[in-house]
């Protein structure tokens, strides 16, 4: 079992003819992902990375029965690409693009309330169900099949934790990078809910960071609705207020909301141990199994 993606997921790559899109389409196919099409306006009829390219996502959905997309489209056009995926309609859209203007995402967020599509990202590494399907840029080789779910706002931090787990022989059901932007599609709560419902997921790792209140809401959800144990990590403990740390969403406001302390306290209150180092997180997961 897994969440959101598996062997059957039929993927269209938006922006497949671009450098990044092309490279990662090939990487995904190599990993075993069922990439069925590309979508790039004006490039319909071509073949790239061995799959047919269509001018619109809708055509790819109709002609190739695609039900998910991965979006490698420059920031200026990424909002539009997400709207196109939602309207196709697909079941899942994974937006890798970093640097999508926040107000574009506010509009996307409004549309998300009107449709049934899951959006992951933007500014995220994607989602992987080890051994089955990978949608995004995650390095497949560090993942292994197993029973731990993982959800994170950060890409490379995820790799760090996964690497520790895999080296200890602890595999993963699904790992999802939800992205580091202020407004994103799938939230911690959304992902945790799916992991809670997944029979094979026996423990979950949640890597949060400073900024926003998503971790606090997740803590509340864990406390009230989850039986599956969760091990936490929060990056950005040393970040001073008012300074954005790389991720557009990683900023402690002047009024002190979004601090690491608040998030760690909320998680601890919900019974979630929060590691001081990535290795400690792996220790905590090991103790659950």
């Amino acid at each position, binding site marked *: 079992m897994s969440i959101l993606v598996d062997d059957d997921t039929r993927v269209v790559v938006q922006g497949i003819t671009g450098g990044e899109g092309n490279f990662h389409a090939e990487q995904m196919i190599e990993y075993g992902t069922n990439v069925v099409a590309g979508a790039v306006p004006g490039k319909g009829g071509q073949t790239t990375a061995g799959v047919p390219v269509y001018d619109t996502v809708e055509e790819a959905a109709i002609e190739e029965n695609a039900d998910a997309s991965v979006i490698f489209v420059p*920031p*200026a056009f990424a909002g539009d690409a997400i709207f196109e995926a939602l309207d196709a309609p697909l079941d899942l859209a994974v937006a890798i693009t*970093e*640097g999508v*203007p*926040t*107000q*574009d*995402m*506010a*509009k996307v*967020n*409004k*549309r998300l309330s009107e449709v049934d599509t899951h959006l992951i990202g933007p500014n995220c*590494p994607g989602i992987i169900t080890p051994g089955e399907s990978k949608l995004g*840029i*995650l*390095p497949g080789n560090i993942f292994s099949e197993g029973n731990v779910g993982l959800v994170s*706002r*950060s*890409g*490379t*931090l*995820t*790799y*760090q934790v996964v*690497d520790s787990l895999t080296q200890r022989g602890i595999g993963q059901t699904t790992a999802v990078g939800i992205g*580091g932007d*202020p*407004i994103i599609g799938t939230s911690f709560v959304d992902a945790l809910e799916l992991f809670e419902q997944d029979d094979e997921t026996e423990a979950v790792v949640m*890597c949060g*960071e*400073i*900024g*926003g*209140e*998503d971790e606090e*809401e997740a803590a509340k959800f864990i406390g009230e609705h989850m039986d599956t144990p969760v091990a936490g990590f929060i*990056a*950005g*403990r*040393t*970040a001073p207020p*008012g*300074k*954005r*740390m*790389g*991720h*557009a*969403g*990683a900023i402690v*406001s*002047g*009024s*002190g909301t979004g601090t690491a302390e608040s998030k760690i306290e909320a998680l601890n209150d919900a019974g979630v141990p929060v590691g*001081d*180092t*990535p*290795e400690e997180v792996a220790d905590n997961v090991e103790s659950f199994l």
Partner: protein
Amino acid sequence: MKLHEYQAKEVFADAGIPVPESRLASSVEAVVEAVGEIGFPAAVKAQVHVGGRGKAGGIEIVTSEAEAREAAESILGMDLKGYTVERVLVEAGVDFVDELYVGVTMDRAAGEPVAMISTEGGVDIETVAEETPEAIAREQIDPAFGMHPYESRKVVYEAGVEQQFAGDVASILRTLFDLYEDSDASEIEVNPVMITSDDEVVAADAVMNIDDDALFRQPELAEMEEESFENDLERKASEYGFEGANYVRLSGDVGIIGNGAGLVMTTLDLVDYYGGTPANFLDIGGGAKAERVANALDMVFSDENVDSVVFNIFGGITRGDEVAKGINEALEQFDEIPKPVTVRLAGTRAEEGMEILNTDLVTVEKTLESAVQRAVADAAEVNE
């Protein structure tokens, strides 16, 4: 990107929001000339990106040429919370009877902009938000529709703005909201909006922050960025393309470079955890090539506070061999390495990278923890 008060007020004035008459000045003589044109009383206001300028001595009200000269001499060149004041805004004094807070920002949890008004203007709004949140009227705005006029009225009335001024304040709020959308702002606030003794409504201060990710479609605002840099390091970061807060200077002595915001933040946290103090946050992003890596090293070396440097790379799309090449290239330029550098590579092509690295120039560590501990120890040694 943060606009200076004088930049934001230019934008406001162009949009039709009333602001006091003002001149920008960067010398004592220019300040004296400005008050000559504007008259008294006038305010001399430091133009730096620092909160609480007034309390820190960055704003003075002057009522004569002598006072203006004195204020200019004291403020220009002063150090305000680490920033040197190079410019002041000389502004006509406003005789006010009431002060309001008016602002628009993004409510992240809702994913919608929120408009706010408080009659507790003129003081730190974040203190108000914490101590008497009910004193701030808030209205979430549907980003697909934009702000309806009735929404601006609703928040004005809910805040308890006097009926006499409700129309003018609502109109300022609508203009601010339109600016917020049209300028891709992440935050706009006027604190205070002043009600003057002759019943005018004036924007007496101006905060306007622009979404870095949207600057590509805001060419006029992007042009203002050059003037908004506070020091050479910020300028250099922008030239190297470490924009969007991928380089953030802090006050410690351990320079930190890594790939991916979460991992870099974690590295900062570990520096702290092992007893050091981070000098900066520097995320080279995904898939960085050798040149970018070299630029990152130059960036961190340029900070005189830095005593040691730690590189932490977990390669996904970033390749360890590319990073190693960049580190070698950057360091081989020096006769003597300016500060000790510790490198930890993991993930894609980490093995190859570690083989490439010139261990005469850097220390290689296998784990994140050991690399950070080493860099902390190096910095401590310098300070002994």
